[in-house]
């Protein structure tokens, strides 16, 4: 059992990191095409090894700690962001058996870990002793706190429908109830959209990347970081989005459930597809202002999330939802 835990942990970590690395390449290639550019072409065939070259470059850079920074916090924050982002992957079932941590309180734990990822961001912003980083960290805290609520509420919808907080059970329930037929009728689609929006805001991705808004705050939280520490913040954002897409496809898109073939493949396919759509969204929209983002969360997403939760509850009481 322990051996299996080790093996599946390593496998999932490798899957996540590989998909992230090639996700980086894929995003740049896709963005290039959307912008009438070529994207990376030099390193490897069609630029495929670009992420590896980036990693090698970052690893070689000189780490610089600003004069008046809080050295320990400054040093610790970026690895922690990556760690927390990566930990969520343990809870996502990549197959009926391939889940390192098949926990009964999976959904709340995922949300808790997502909220935990906020703390190193704030640490990084405060420890830098830089005004841009401080502004960015302030925004990051407010934004993640605001979007935590709709995230919880929309994640409740599949929990109510499946009657379980275990992600594997949720997938199994979707498998039993033919998610493709039942799901979109009236609950799944809005809940899915709201979840994606809240997840993007939690992961600080464009169009919700206000903490990093590089046209205003230079680079926000990561302004003072160099080398691999910058790389960790960068990586954390990607891993966060990737794992977020994995969670979303588990909760709403049937997870590893597919008509044929190995289940891991279906999970990776769904995750990558969702990931690409998020890229597409990212390269199409301009960002909102911090206060508008808060207003969006509190005025629209929270009541909408509540309404969806109640509707889901009503649906389960009807003869079709039992």
């Amino acid at each position, binding site marked *: 059992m322990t051996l299996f835990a080790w093996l599946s942990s390593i496998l999932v970590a490798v899957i996540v990191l590989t998909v992230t690395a090639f996700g980086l390449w894929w995003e740049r290639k896709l963005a290039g095409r*959307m912008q*009438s*550019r*070529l994207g990376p072409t030099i390193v490897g065939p069609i630029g495929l090894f670009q992420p590896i070259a980036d990693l090698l470059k970052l690893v070689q850079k000189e780490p610089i700690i600003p004069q008046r920074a809080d050295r320990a916090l400054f040093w610790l924050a970026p690895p922690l962001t990556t760690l927390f982002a990566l930990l969520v992957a343990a809870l996502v079932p990549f197959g009926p058996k391939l889940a390192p941590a098949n926990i009964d309180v999976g959904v709340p734990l995922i949300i808790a870990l997502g909220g935990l990822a906020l703390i190193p961001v704030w640490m990084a912003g405060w420890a830098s002793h830089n005004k841009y980083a401080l502004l960015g960290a302030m925004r990051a805290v407010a934004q993640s706190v605001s979007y935590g609520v709709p995230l919880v509420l929309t994640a409740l919808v599949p929990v109510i429908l499946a009657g379980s907080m275990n992600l594997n059970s949720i997938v199994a329930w979707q498998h039993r109830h033919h998610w493709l037929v039942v799901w979109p009728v009236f609950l799944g689609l809005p809940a899915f959209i709201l979840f994606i929006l809240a997840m993007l805001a939690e992961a600080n991705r464009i169009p919700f990347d206000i903490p990093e808004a590089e046209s205003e705050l230079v680079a926000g939280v990561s302004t003072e970081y160099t080398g691999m520490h910058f790389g960790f913040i960068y990586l954390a954002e990607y891993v966060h989005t990737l794992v977020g897409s994995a969670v979303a496809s588990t909760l709403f898109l049937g997870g590893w459930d597919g008509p044929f073939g190995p289940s891991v493949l279906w999970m990776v396919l769904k995750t990558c597809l969702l990931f690409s759509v998020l890229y*597409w*969204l990212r*390269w*199409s929209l301009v960002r909102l202002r911090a206060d508008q983002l808060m207003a969006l969360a509190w005025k629209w997403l929270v009541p909408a999330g509540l309404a969806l939760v109640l509707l889901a509850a009503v649906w389960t009481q009807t003869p079709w939802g039992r």
Partner: protein
Amino acid sequence: MGYLLDGLKSMWTTALNAIRPPFTQEFPKVLRPHPERYHTSFALLHDETGDEACTGCGACARICPSQVITVKLGKRESAITQKKRGYADDFTLDLTACLVCELCVQVCPTDAIVMLKVPELPGFRREDLVLSMPRLYENEKSKPLGWSNATKLMAMQDPKAGAAKPEPSKETAPAPAAAGAAS
């Protein structure tokens, strides 16, 4: 709702652009086609007898707005026609500060200085972009020359040229009239 709709419209627009061919090129591998009038670096020419066309008059040095040209006038006997005439003993053009304004080409009385169609290669030292006289004469032989010289530019700006030539083609600019205007 409207936000979602507008977001979808934006995404449609970017998708539309994704299927258009890319407009960037891989620079060192693929070179952009240059138009006929493209001009960058310089060359000094020889005249039809094979003698150096530059008479060392220094008109280009005087007109240059950023004063990157230095010419040293020397008088000696021509090796070909055995006549005593002016030569440039030394001619240096500092490309680092050149504005590529084409004025030196326009004022040359003997069409000696022209521009090239290919840029100089970048170098690691400042001297790499200082064109000495041997390099300028070398450019004449080794690199494609640009379209313009003083005669052609003058023909284009001839105040007496009128309705006679509707869209004049530059390559066939009438030389005699231009020579008159240039003198």
